[in-house]
């Protein structure tokens, strides 16, 4: 029993711990960016990891969707859906923070640069995914249709990534993953950013663990539901009776 309790608590512990570490690194990193100001740059330590987590979550949705299409095991579908839920939230967070950063840096809430806009598009793709899941309570139908959309939506992810290079908008180019090495030269800033990405990865994994616990409970409920003998639909139809009491 105690091991089970620990099992349920550790994701929350991991989330708090990893975010605390990331926060500390974000606060102790220098204010080296003279263009963006001392405090504004710290938004980057949440915005970038949130965006990374969004990509990760949607990649897992893609994997879950492929897994369902191959195995027809509903567990894969629930993983895909759980990951999409998390991804939508963190995409929204990344966009919101990007807007705050943009307002303070460029003076407008929305810059219409390629990556920000395509991230917003990705957000709507997965909103559509979640909307599709709500259109039927038939778990098999829902899983199949959502899986196809999950695979289709994943086409977006490489396009969002490469858009920075191809369309060269206002958004700064990839800060870390570049052919000529990271743009951020200060090692502490770079470390803070990487720690942030790792922390959010831990957050994602922890949230998925909790969500998958719920999935297990949903699976058990579904199995119990299946085993209960319910009246068939036709039993609701009875012999008509037009007569009243005599």
């Amino acid at each position, binding site marked *: 029993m105690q091991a089970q309790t620990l099992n349920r608590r550790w994701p929350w512990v991991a989330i708090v711990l990893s975010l605390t570490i990331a926060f500390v690194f974000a606060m102790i990193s220098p204010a080296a960016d003279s263009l963006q100001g001392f405090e504004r740059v710290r938004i980057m330590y949440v915005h970038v990891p949130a965006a990374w987590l969004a990509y990760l979550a949607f990649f897992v949705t893609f994997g879950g969707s492929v897994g369902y299409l191959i195995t027809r095991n509903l567990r894969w579908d629930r993983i895909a859906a759980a990951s999409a839920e998390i991804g939508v939230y963190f995409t929204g967070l990344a966009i919101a923070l990007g807007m705050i950063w943009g307002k303070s840096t460029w003076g407008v809430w929305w810059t219409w640069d390629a990556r920000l806009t395509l991230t917003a598009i990705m957000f709507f793709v997965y909103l559509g995914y979640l909307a599709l899941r709500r259109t039927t309570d*038939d778990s098999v*139908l829902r899983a199949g249709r959502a899986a196809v959309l999950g695979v289709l939506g994943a086409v977006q992810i490489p396009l969002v990534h490469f858009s920075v290079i191809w369309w060269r908008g206002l958004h700064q180019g990839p800060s870390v993953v570049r052919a000529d090495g990271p743009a951020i030269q200060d090692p502490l800033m770079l470390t803070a950013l990487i720690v942030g990405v790792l922390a959010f990865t831990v957050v994602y994994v922890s949230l998925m663990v909790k969500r998958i616990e719920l999935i297990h409970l949903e699976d058990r409920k579904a199995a119990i*539901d299946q085993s209960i003998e319910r*009246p*068939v*639909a*036709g*039993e*609701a*139809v009875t012999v008509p009776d037009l007569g009243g009491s005599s």
Partner: protein
Amino acid sequence: MTETLLVELSKVGVRIGSTQILRDVDLEIRAGEVVGLFGANGAGKTTALRLMATLIRPAQGTGRVLGADLTSPERYDVRRRIGMIGHTPGIFPELTLGENLQYAARVAGVPTDRAGESLAAVGLAGASDRLAGASSHGMQRRTEFARELMIDRSLLLLDEPHSALDRDAVDLVEGLIARKAAEGGAVVVVSHDRDRINKIAHRSVELSGGTLS
């Protein structure tokens, strides 16, 4: 004649969403049989037909139709040998009766001149150019029977086949049913007209409480 099993259902259950429609259905239909399927409104008769047509997968139990497992991809391979005429016509109202049959012929891979012959066989030769949407329900039904005449089917599933048909068409339907059975196929007829069906069926089954008796 070898009594080939064309339909084998064992403890089959069908759920649509969270609603159980059929439960513990056991049914065997052999080549040459005409089977009447009766039941009250909402009993699941149409669902049972669509199950036998391989259009629905069973949620419980095992089922084979024309040798194909109802849960495996091989069910796609036998669909061409299954004919079904449901409540609502499955033809396209924007096409003429003749065009509907020509489309069916092309998809099924039969010569398109059979379309005209089949339409004539059901008494609609003069209505070939009439839009299906502008035709009566009875004419649309006859067109569907023409389609089934055109294509070689081993299993024929008919849902209320006599509805909207005049006397001549009723004779046509019963002739088609008898011919199919004589050729070694099988026919399942859903109907509320028990007297009429019992005259042409070898046996009948009753769907009640989601199961067959």
